[in-house]
């Protein structure tokens, strides 16, 4: 038990250090850009933790990041670099909206479940195609998933301007979903919907799937060394496609919760780049689904805070992108420096064998 605790501590201090460095860098950047950095951080803090209402809002922002973050994490574990969580999330939103505005006669709980299922299906489908192209034609999933993001974005643009358009609104957006499909708020006066709780459960389940089942064993084996996995009798293509399906479904479920719990209708910017931020979320958590819960909170905090920063001191909310980028670089560099140290320490006997 004690060993486990030190293990956890060791796995957490590097990301923490990276976050700390990133905050320092951000402070410096804000100052250099001529913004009052202290005020910026105060408004960042207040926007997220001042009271229960804003804290609920933070959790709300964290929810889509939680789902997309787990989606990216499981992909990374299986060496499918899913940059497509964005598109899968958007497709989840679109499918859930379609269900919500089509089956208006359905009882509430059933409608919610169907919306989530529709989101999962749409997301999985959006992940399946790049997965198939990767395994069958060895086309890099990086290019295809990104292209699918843009296609999804334009598709939603089309939906909210044409078939789903609510003409009573000035801006292009869809009809509002049936009211019984609105997810209830968990805490009064906050917009906290059940999505975050379901997301936490999903994180635990995916953790179990990855680390406590033979399927997870196969996913990780393929991720580390697909050739060895192949010769160990694992069907590499099937495993990769399953990984993409699960990954896409998770992102799609995130989209469904965003619609049913928060937005209640579809619009073009519904994602706000969650799927891209998810990459940072997953990497900060070292692709551990449980860690994703924590890191999605951090980035949710950043997301809600950056809007406040823009409102209060005028710095563009895109400042969050800079912070994300810096965090990724620090975490990636820190993680590798750890691996490297271990490798050089263990390498010698291997080296000695290999040289003659």
């Amino acid at each position, binding site marked *: 038990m004690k060993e486990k605790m030190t293990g956890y501590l060791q796995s957490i201090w590097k990301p923490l250090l990276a976050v700390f460095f990133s905050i320092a860098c951000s402070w410096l950047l804000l100052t250099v*850009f*001529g*913004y009052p950095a202290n005020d910026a951080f105060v408004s960042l803090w207040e926007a997220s933790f001042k009271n229960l209402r804003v804290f609920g809002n933070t959790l709300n922002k964290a929810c889509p990041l939680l789902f997309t973050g787990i989606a990216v994490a499981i992909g990374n574990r299986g060496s499918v*670099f899913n*940059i497509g969580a964005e598109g899968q999330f958007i497709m989840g939103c679109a499918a859930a909206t379609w269900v919500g505005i089509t089956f208006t006669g359905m009882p509430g709980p059933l409608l919610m479940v169907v919306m989530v299922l529709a989101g999962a299906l749409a997301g999985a489908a959006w992940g399946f195609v790049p997965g198939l*192209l990767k395994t069958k*034609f*060895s*086309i*890099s999933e*990086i*290019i*295809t998933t*990104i*292209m*699918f993001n*843009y*296609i999804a974005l*334009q*598709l939603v*643009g*089309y939906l909210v*301007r*044409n078939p789903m358009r609510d003409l009573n609104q000035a801006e292009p957006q869809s009809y509002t979903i049936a009211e019984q499909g609105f997810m209830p708020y968990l805490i009064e006066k906050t917009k906290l919907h059940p999505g975050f709780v379901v997301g936490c459960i999903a994180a635990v389940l995916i953790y179990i799937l990855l680390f406590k089942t033979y399927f997870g064993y196969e996913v990780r084996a393929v991720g580390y060394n697909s050739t060895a996995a192949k010769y160990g009798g694992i069907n590499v293509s099937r495993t990769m496609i399953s990984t993409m399906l699960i990954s896409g479904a998770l992102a799609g479920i995130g989209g469904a919760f965003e619609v049913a719990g928060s937005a209640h209708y579809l619009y073009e910017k519904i994602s706000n780049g969650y799927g*891209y931020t998810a*990459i*940072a979320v997953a*990497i900060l958590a070292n692709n551990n689904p449980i860690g994703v819960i924590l890191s999605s909170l951090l980035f949710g905090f950043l997301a809600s805070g950056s809007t406040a920063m823009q409102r209060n001191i*005028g*710095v*563009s909310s*895109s*400042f*969050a*992108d*800079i*912070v*994300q*980028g*810096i965090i*990724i*670089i620090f975490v*990636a*560099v820190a*993680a*590798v*420096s750890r691996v*490297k140290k271990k490798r050089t320490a263990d390498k010698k006997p291997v*080296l000695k064998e290999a040289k003659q």
Partner: protein
Amino acid sequence: MDQLSSFLAATIRMAIPLLIAALGLLVSERSGLMNIGVEGTMLSGAFAAFSVAYYTNNYWLGMLAGMLAGCFMTLVFAVAAIKFRAPQVVIGCAINMLGSGFTAVLFRKMFFDAQTGGTQVKSFPSLQIPGLSSVPLLGETFFSHNIIVYIGILMVPAIWFLMNRTSIGTRIIAVGEHPKAADSLGINVFVTRYAAALFSGLLMGMAGAYLAIAQSNTFQVDMTGGKGYIAMAVVVLGKWRALGVLAGALIFGGANALQMTLQNAGLNIPNNLILMVPYIVTVLAVLAACKQKAIDASAKGVPYEKA
């Protein structure tokens, strides 16, 4: 006839940023660096070019600034990927976020009033080449572009020559293909990769600058709109060869031009569906190209470590 020549001219205009960025990426990838941060690097180039052109009122200085900004972004990538051996795809993602974030924040800071009005700068004028530009069809297609278009096209033989007929090119290929062999011949793998990265940054920055101060005359947040990613597809499609990259860029330029032509044609097709065209073409083109043999660097994405 007129429509055809303006379609062809648009094809070339739209192909150029993809071409220039993809040529840069080609050099970077053949040296073994898998930089997916093209999008962010191009954005930085676009913003730097725009702002310097705005303050100096000189588009050449703007271009220079754009190239240097691109170079800076790839330097960040290179240090993380080469020195610290961080996973290149991850760092590329971070570069894209940094590019998007920095340009948006600085744009708001420096041109806040401009956001709504759209501040414009003096951009590269199109050169009507005397005599040639009035030839029917060919004139508009080939001889009425701004100077960067011609520079971009001339860069195709230049990069071909660099890669195939100079010792620099063979060094780049060697460190991408078999870094250990290169090292054993006294070639410095790290220096070669840094150089390739920085050179690619110059070109990516130039491609971004083209978007801001040659193709248009202003900057918009996230104005690259995925062109950096499409440039990655162009390299795949061009099989890591300069001429192939030209062909690939023209295909995507054509897809973009088609999208514009359709939009202008006043057809009853929803705009968003037309805007999908380039992205769908990308997927289909990469799918069509995947069966053929390519010469991608075998050590791509793998950090080099001395024994």
